[in-house]
């Protein structure tokens, strides 16, 4: 059997696997999201977001990430996409709009990419592939 504690998924770029560590970190952030499944709570959150967030045992960083609607930041702080989607639903956003917001392109560009067959796995399998790409891009800017 493989080592049950290894995490081979840590070298997949642009991807945060929601494991037990992330879940522990994000427990209250995700439970706050869950509360938005009730219409009353959505209404109270909309009325005063900061006050509603203060009812939850979340870190200041997590609260700020929610206020900023910074999905990538929320994920790095323990959020899971299916929970975070409740914030999107409260804002009237679709999964595709949320996904686009995490990739640094416009909603239209993202939709066009999907219609053209999606993001290819080529060059997107390992973190070193992204590191090399970023280094090359930085090199071009430097010259």
């Amino acid at each position, binding site marked *: 059997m493989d080592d049950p504690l290894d995490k081979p998924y840590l070298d997949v770029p642009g991807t945060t696997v929601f494991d037990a560590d992330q879940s522990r970190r994000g427990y209250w952030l995700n439970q706050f999201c*869950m509360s938005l499944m009730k219409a009353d709570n959505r209404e109270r959150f909309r009325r005063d977001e900061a006050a509603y967030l203060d009812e939850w045992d979340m870190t200041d960083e997590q609260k700020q990430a929610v206020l900023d609607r910074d999905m990538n930041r929320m994920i790095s702080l323990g959020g899971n996409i299916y929970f975070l989607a409740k914030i999107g639903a409260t804002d009237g956003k679709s999964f595709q709009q949320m996904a686009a917001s995490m990739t640094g392109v416009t909603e239209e560009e993202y939709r066009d990419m999907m219609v053209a067959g999606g*993001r290819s796995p080529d060059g997107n399998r390992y973190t070193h592939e992204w590191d090399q790409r970023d280094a090359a891009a930085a090199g071009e800017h430097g010259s």
Partner: protein
Amino acid sequence: MNAHISASVYTSHVPAIGVALDLGKTDEPYWQPLFAGYEFSKSWFAEHTPDVVFLVYNDHATAFSLEVIPTFAIGTGARFAVADEGWGPRPVPDVVGHPELAAHIAHSVIRQDFDLTIVNQMDVDHGLTVPLSLMCGQPSEWPCPVIPFAVNVVHYPVPSGRRCLALGQAIRRAIESYPDDLDVQIWGTGGMSHQLQGPRAGLINSEFDRAFLDDLIAAPTELAEKPHVDYVREAGSEGIELVMWLIARGAMADLGGGPPPTVRHRFYHVPASNTAVGHLILEN
């Protein structure tokens, strides 16, 4: 005569498909090719409506928050309401269960060393209702009872492919020991390649998906050895849902010494929103 499994059905369960159906968008150019791929399936299902569907799916932070995270949960209730996932409940009928068969399966499968969580009360989300809509259309009542079987594929580690295939074999033995002549279908849902989160969102891997369909049909035991990281790397972080297809596949006769299944229908399409859509019907 005891109960038997007549067929297995596999399909993606993308929420946007439910929205397109509910809002009457199925003829729009974006959606038409997708729904065309299910036309055969709807007529096949109308001709082969079973007594019960055993429906393997995952909950998407709907019935299960982070308070309790069961790996395998069987719905033993008489009725399951359609959940409000934040956009309001889908306008589809509630799901009628089959508590007698579900309780029998729970008893048998737990005795075969799979630790199922028994759930008498839960709402069901798009993971369960979108496959029903794709196969049954838009009836005022679903045409047969459904046993919901929820698998954790959200919170890692999720069950391995090997364990899912073996669970399917245990479910087949459980169904075949039920002393009533019921025609049962088992459905595996979710997938195919997709990633909804992070800067790599939008990943699609058609080559992986097509090979998965080939192997699911002809080499399921080998396919079940695929490690989780291969799904994540090749098919996206949410592509891991595909392990659920192995539960349905494990319940087919050939994995209990019977003949290989017949492929009645196969379909693949990109995209539905963020996701590659795959679909198979296998008959025993």
